[in-house]
């Protein structure tokens, strides 16, 4: 069949296809609710067009025609294979199901991340508690002095200020969001350096938290420090460990790819890792809320400890059990 006849014969479906395509490519709001026109025929038209394109190439029709058909095919391909996203529903499934299940699948790495965070933390805490000089190897003296004054039970300090304003809280909230989640994300990305970056970030965070805690406790500032951190600690520390574990997952793909190529392993693991990071980010947002609005609040220490304990239980229950139930009901 000659090109011109071919074009003439196929013109009606092509026109129809282009009409539908123009509609699909319209504004996103219009895309959501196809009214008036039936889009059901689109896949059929698309397949037809694909066949025509293959024919045109096989028969050596003019390059211009082939290029035009290819453009149409590509635009249709973009629309037809678009992933539909339902943000709210998928967020629900993500929180109750996907995230905890994925984490449990990589429980070994999670424990590793937790270990990398907590072991240096505890060791450093004990060391600093025993020997006051060690902290200066990690944190410079000006910062140490600032920390001391911040948590000094005698002075005015943001941690215990009873008349702290709501807007200050809010500013702190913004800061925590920016700072802490950034740490989490970087811990994840560092995994691409064969897991070293993640491990380093975990260890250094552990060391500095441990050092601060040990130092303040030794100075008898524990009475202000511990109630402050107890509220958000469960969420924040776990989330940092989880995002570190996500980074380790990337590193694992590069160091021990198993039967896959490194690239394939990396892709596979990255898919899970980003789920872990997403969950960790959610937990960090929760931690930021608690830290900004509750930890600095005026409640007595006992209640704060209680809330902290409940938080640990909740986190453990959530990570251990959520999503274990029947699926897809």
């Amino acid at each position, binding site marked *: 069949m000659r090109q011109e006849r071919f074009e003439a014969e196929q013109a009606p479906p092509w026109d129809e296809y282009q009409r539908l395509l123009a509609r699909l490519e319209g504004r996103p709001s219009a895309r959501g609710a196809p009214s008036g026109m039936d889009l059901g025929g689109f896949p059929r038209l698309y397949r037809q067009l694909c066949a025509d394109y293959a024919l045109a190439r096989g028969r050596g029709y003019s390059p211009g025609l082939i290029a035009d058909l290819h*453009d149409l095919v590509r635009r249709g391909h973009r629309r037809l294979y678009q992933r539909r996203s339902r943000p709210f529903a998928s967020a629900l499934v993500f929180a109750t199901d996907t995230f905890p299940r994925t984490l449990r699948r990589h429980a070994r790495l999670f424990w590793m991340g937790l270990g990398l965070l907590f072991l240096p933390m505890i060791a450093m805490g004990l060391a600093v508690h025993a020997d006051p000089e060690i902290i200066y190897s990690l944190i410079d003296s000006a910062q140490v002095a600032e920390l001391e004054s911040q948590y000094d039970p005698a002075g005015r300090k943001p941690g215990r200020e009873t008349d702290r304003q709501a807007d200050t809280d809010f*500013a702190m909230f913004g*800061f925590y969001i920016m700072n802490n989640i950034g740490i989490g994300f970087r811990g994840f990305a560092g995994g691409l350096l064969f897991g070293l970056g993640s491990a380093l970030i975990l260890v250094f965070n552990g060391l500095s938290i441990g050092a601060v805690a040990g130092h303040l406790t030794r100075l008898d500032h524990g009475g202000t420090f511990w109630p402050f951190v107890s509220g958000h600690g469960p969420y924040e520390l776990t989330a940092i460990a989880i995002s570190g574990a996500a980074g380790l997952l990337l590193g694992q793909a590069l160091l021990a790819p198993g039967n896959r190529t490194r690239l394939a392993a990396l892709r596979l693991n990255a898919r899970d890792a980003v789920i872990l990071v997403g969950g960790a980010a959610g937990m960090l947002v929760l931690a930021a809320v608690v830290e900004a609005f509750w930890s600095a609040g005026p409640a007595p220490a006992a209640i704060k400890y209680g809330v902290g304990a409940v938080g640990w239980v909740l986190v453990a229950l959530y990570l251990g059990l959520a999503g274990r139930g029947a699926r897809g009901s």
Partner: protein
Amino acid sequence: MPRQIDSIRFNETPEGIDLELRVAGPVPRALALFLDGLVRAGLYLVLIPLSALADTGVGLMLIGFFLLEWFYPVVFEVRAGATPGKRAMGLVVVHDDGTPVGLPASMIRNLLRVVDFLPVFYGVGLVSVLLDHDFRRLGDLAAGTLVLHAERRAPPRTIADTPPVQVPPGFALETQQAILSYAERGPRLSAARRVELAEVLTADGGIRGEAAVRRVEGWASWLARGRGLEAS
């Protein structure tokens, strides 16, 4: 013959056809990045005055900074396929099978930006883009994404209505396509150049000048329409 060098990657779709993905190289991507940097800097400048509104403003500003830092590309890529800078450069982000990029892949490629940024100004990313067959940086490799040149706006094409002349035997399919292409692109070439091109094919037969152009266009017409019987 070894494979010809091309900046195109082919991806076979479920329909069994090869989709051409025109992968974008380092220069347009670098410029897109720079433009995005400008846009982001502008947004930062918009956010900074918030700090005048006491601490509430500072909080909002910091949250804004956070979102800009991490989610600026994700939001644009998932919603529109490309960040404003990429869009200005005519680029678009897709999965490596040519489908529009989704949230997980976009998250991966943009969170891993941190590594591509190392040690300064995307040094690692640049090396990766120069080395990789499809100009992918590390984030792209991990997420399985590509940056492509977006749609091509094709000029209109018509094959002039010259009386068909039968093509002499012995022209390969590629040559026939080149003849058709000549007819399609002819109007955009200078007249002298058209004559010259046509004479390459027809000079052996002693046809020169405008006649050569008419002859080659006649061949094209014959290829597209047949002897004129089919066309009716």
